[in-house]
């Protein structure tokens, strides 16, 4: 028996309601799941390697993680285990994993799939560029450095005590009494010297014990 026009319309409306409720429900669940997290892209070669982030298995592609430190591990038979510590922060992040072949089969696979490795390395290159930009974003003062005047020089170097590599040490080279002028210069740029790790070259604190 053929369904009537009215029955067809009822079915269409029913399906429409289910679809709309599904879309609304999905939007709510997705929004709640992504709160306080940042998008992270995982790019891995070979694609079928097992990847875990802090012990949780992940797939290649986009996922959402809370900002913080993560241990990334990747394993695949015939390839060397891959381990990486990465700090995920509040901007877009990419985790690039290019596994090193160990067995003969794995080496053959890599030889046949050089394009995939090159593509992954290109993503890694973009990530490195983004990291450089991120370093400047986190330490915007570096865009003004080194700064040289007749009386002083202000430079910077990475703070090796910070394993994230994101901290800097400001270095001031000046004779007495111009060191204060160099500090004032930092304030004049709109930065508070309190927030920096500042070292003076060719200087001995008279109060040092």
């Amino acid at each position, binding site marked *: 028996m053929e369904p009537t026009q009215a029955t067809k319309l009822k079915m269409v409306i029913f399906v429409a309601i289910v679809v*709309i409720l599904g879309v609304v429900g999905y939007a709510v669940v997705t929004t709640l799941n992504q709160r306080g997290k940042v998008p992270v892209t995982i790019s891995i070669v070979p694609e079928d390697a097992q990847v875990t982030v802090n012990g949780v298995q992940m797939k290649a592609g986009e996922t959402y993680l809370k900002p913080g430190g993560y241990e990334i591990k990747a394993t695949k038979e015939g390839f060397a285990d891959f381990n990486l510590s990465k700090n995920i922060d509040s901007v877009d992040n990419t985790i690039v994993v290019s596994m090193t072949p160990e067995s003969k089969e794995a080496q053959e696979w890599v030889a046949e799939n050089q394009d995939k490795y090159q593509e992954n390395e290109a993503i890694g290159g973009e990530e490195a560029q983004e990291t450089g930009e991120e370093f400047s974003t986190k330490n915007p003062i570096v865009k003004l450095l080194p700064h040289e005047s007749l009386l002083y020089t202000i430079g910077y170097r990475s703070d090796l005590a910070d394993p994230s590599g994101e901290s800097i040490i400001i270095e001031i080279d000046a004779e007495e*009494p111009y060191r204060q002028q160099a*500090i004032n210069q930092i304030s004049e740029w709109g930065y508070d010297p309190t927030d920096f*790790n500042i070292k003076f070259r060719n200087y001995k604190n008279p109060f040092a014990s």
Partner: protein
Amino acid sequence: MKKLIIIAISIIVIAIISAFAFMQVSSYHKVTFAFGDDVTGATLFRIKESEAGNHEIAGDEIQKITAASEVSLQNGGYYVVPEGEKVSKSDISFTVADQDTTVDVKPGYSDEFLKSAYAKEKPAIEAAMKQALPLIASDYTPEQGALYGKADWYGAILTKKVADPRDERDFYRIVMHKANGDWKVINQPELVLTSAQFKDVPVEILRSVNKLTR
């Protein structure tokens, strides 16, 4: 048929409104206010989005808080203005972002109170300073000394004693802390006080002392 369409539209509208309402409700979080000993109350304001970072323009007053209490607040920027005879009335800003939070309303003392307290503490501070660093007694003069926080922090600049005032020298910044009735020099005087070196000193005190000039 019309009835069916109306019911369908109603269900969709209710679903969308419910989802919106759920999102709204889930954006509220519990904020606990922990008052300092000398704080008798506070006024809570919401920072107007267009005026974020500009507290010269008052935000929207939300409510008075008369004792350490909990308030349910939506995600966003807020500030409280503490009340109390001795305490500073400076804003204390905080942000509610997707989770419950505790806000410490433990301001330092007001400038007037700190000035009067400094007059009493000055001899003890300078004696302790010179005892800890004899070089100060012989070669330096403490200037622009002031108390900070709850009158338990002291900051000043140390200028070199020179025969000719045109002989400009580096000047140093000193921070001292009062604990168990005694004043102690923190670290050693420096050209600039950084939070990296003075980890145990509240950063707002370092900022204030770094602003002192000859």
